[in-house]
């Protein structure tokens, strides 16, 4: 998609990413963008504008960002503009093809599919973001502590990460999801449980290289305590890779959520998710109700690709920032 040298970061469903040092990943011969703000006394606003321009130079990332904003509006504002009943079934209207009354047709329970897509998108996006927030937060803290403290603590914490990364995530997720009764928070918890270790590994690597920097040594010399140092100096300076990792976690969570739906684990009715709608479409595959299969299917694929592409664009910004010495 982009010419960024990365095999690992943009790809969803990829829990064990290979970490290459972003600074080393700048291509020889790739002209670095002029970054006058790094030396001069320009404002923070100016730096933001440079980053935004850099991000926008990646067309795919820009288009994806616009698409995601439109998707958010569709799912969360759409239901106020286009009101449909999504709680009581009308079996008389089941499996109707798209028409004037139902622009995208209806599902096997007679729900208006356009409204249903909005509702299913809400839970899907909520799960994606919640998982990303929790697993990035927890994983980043875990990895930063491991990398900063080092020694035996690092060894113990990272063996835990290794273990968690070795368990095929879908098997563990299915098991966890059956131990408790289904709910949105259980799904978030389950996917978080299989997502945080990769963040921890990436942030640990970042911390290892940051802890030897002069400003960290200086802060330690002034008597800063370990946790304070991690919080004040290490974490803020690895924010770039944490943000990129956040987008990756969103994409992965949406993907896993869809897989779990096939294995029978989802939002309890009358709620739904795109994965569960896709599942309904699959059971009606031979009835030629194409709208029931394609609409949720395409929604999932586009959302995953778009989030990954935005991550791609952010990655470029982070790499060039680091190359320019702006951390």
């Amino acid at each position, binding site marked *: *998609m982009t*010419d*960024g*040298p*990365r*095999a*690992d970061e*943009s*790809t*969803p*469903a*990829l*829990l*064990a*990413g*290979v970490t290459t040092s972003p600074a080393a*990943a700048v*291509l*020889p*011969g790739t002209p670095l963008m002029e970054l006058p703000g790094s030396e001069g006394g320009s404002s923070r606003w100016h730096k933001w504008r440079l980053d935004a321009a850099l991000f926008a130079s990646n067309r795919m990332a820009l288009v994806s960002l616009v698409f995601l904003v439109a998707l958010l509006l569709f799912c969360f504002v759409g239901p106020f503009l286009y009101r449909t009943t999504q709680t009581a079934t009308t079996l008389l209207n089941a499996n109707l093809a798209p028409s004037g009354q139902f622009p995208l047709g209806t599902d096997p329970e007679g729900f208006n599919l356009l409204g249903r897509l909005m509702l299913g998108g809400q839970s899907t996006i909520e799960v994606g973001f919640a998982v990303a927030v929790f697993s990035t937060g927890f994983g980043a803290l875990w990895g930063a502590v491991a990398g900063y403290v080092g020694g035996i603590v690092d060894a113990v914490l990272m*063996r*835990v990460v*290794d*273990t968690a*990364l*070795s*368990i*095929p*995530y*879908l*098997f*563990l997720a*299915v*098991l966890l999801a*059956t*131990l*408790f009764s289904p709910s949105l928070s259980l799904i978030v918890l389950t996917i978080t449980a299989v997502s945080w270790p990769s963040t921890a590994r990436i942030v640990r690597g970042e911390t290892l290289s940051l802890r030897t920097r002069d400003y960290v040594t200086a802060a330690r010399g002034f008597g800063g305590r370990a946790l304070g140092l991690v919080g004040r100096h290490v974490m803020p300076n690895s924010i770039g890779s944490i943000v990129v990792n956040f987008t990756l976690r969103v*994409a992965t969570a949406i*993907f896993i959520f*869809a*897989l779990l739906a*096939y*294995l*029978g684990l989802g939002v309890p009715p009358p709620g739904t998710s795109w*994965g569960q709608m*896709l*599942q309904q479409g*699959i059971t009606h*595959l*031979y009835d030629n109700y194409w709208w029931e*299969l394609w609409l949720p*299917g395409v929604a*999932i*694929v586009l959302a*995953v*690709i778009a989030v*990954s592409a935005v991550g791609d664009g952010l990655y470029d910004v982070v790499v060039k920032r680091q190359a320019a010495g702006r951390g």
Partner: protein
Amino acid sequence: MVGYIVRRLLQALIVLLLVTVIVFILLHALPGGLIRAQLGAKASKFEVHQLTIQEGLTKPLPVQYGIWLSNLLHGNLGFAYKQETPVLTLIGETFPRTLVLAGSGLFLAALFAVPLGALQGSRRNSLMDYGVSGFLLTTYSTPYQLLGVLLIFVFAVQLNVLPGTATNFGQGFGTDVRVLALPVLALFLGNVAYFSRYVRSSVIDSFGEDYVRTARAKGASKMRILVRHVLRNSLLPFVSAVGLSLPTLVSGTLVIEVLFNYPGMGTYFWHAQQDRTYPLVLGILLVVTVLVVVGNLLADLAYAALDPRIRYD
């Protein structure tokens, strides 16, 4: 080198031990307890009490873990009460099938990724590069069930050239190949982008290296540079990428096995999970994890053996 191998083996051993701890904890987190899961909700208090003592569940937890681990090491993974068969026997039947499916998918993905990635990397940002990337990224982002269903719809229903279910696996080599074709293809499409993107970026990186410039200056042809200099150096990190892809790959087989009703560990896991046959569920979880740990270990050792530059001391 010997030091590295010993350290890496020790690490893998610790990870395996931690896996058993996690599985043991899960065993005790089961809703209603393991006893209720075995006897059903209608069992009398007396029966529950009896089995609790019989299974040694009144002993302290560390002692129970010790007993369980020793059983495990003796090949006793428990009893699948639904199938009335020892868990180990069921795993023995299904393990090779899953290995065949996952192995073929991985092999094909890795095999095709090398020329695809090399081609893309050497003609970076061309129309071909964008086209291949776009297609592979799309299949990569498509949930396995949708990939599988589309393949079934095209090849089994419309064209009617391949079977749409893999239930008939194990009736001779000829049928096995036909039966496995669609599940393996789905697994391939879902994973090939991971590898091809890896090769692509690694090839792009190598093209900027000094030894490539030297070879070019000496007048070596583009093909020769690509094969002799670029690919040779790009394939090393590829070995560890294969190791890292294993958890994702094995997770994918779960969905694909269930979709095609392929009688492997994934399908058994799913059914066991549905009828709460917990010893089988946890046994399979343990075995697939061991599979990943061992695969990772092999990849790391191969990497260390293949790369003469790196010395692990």
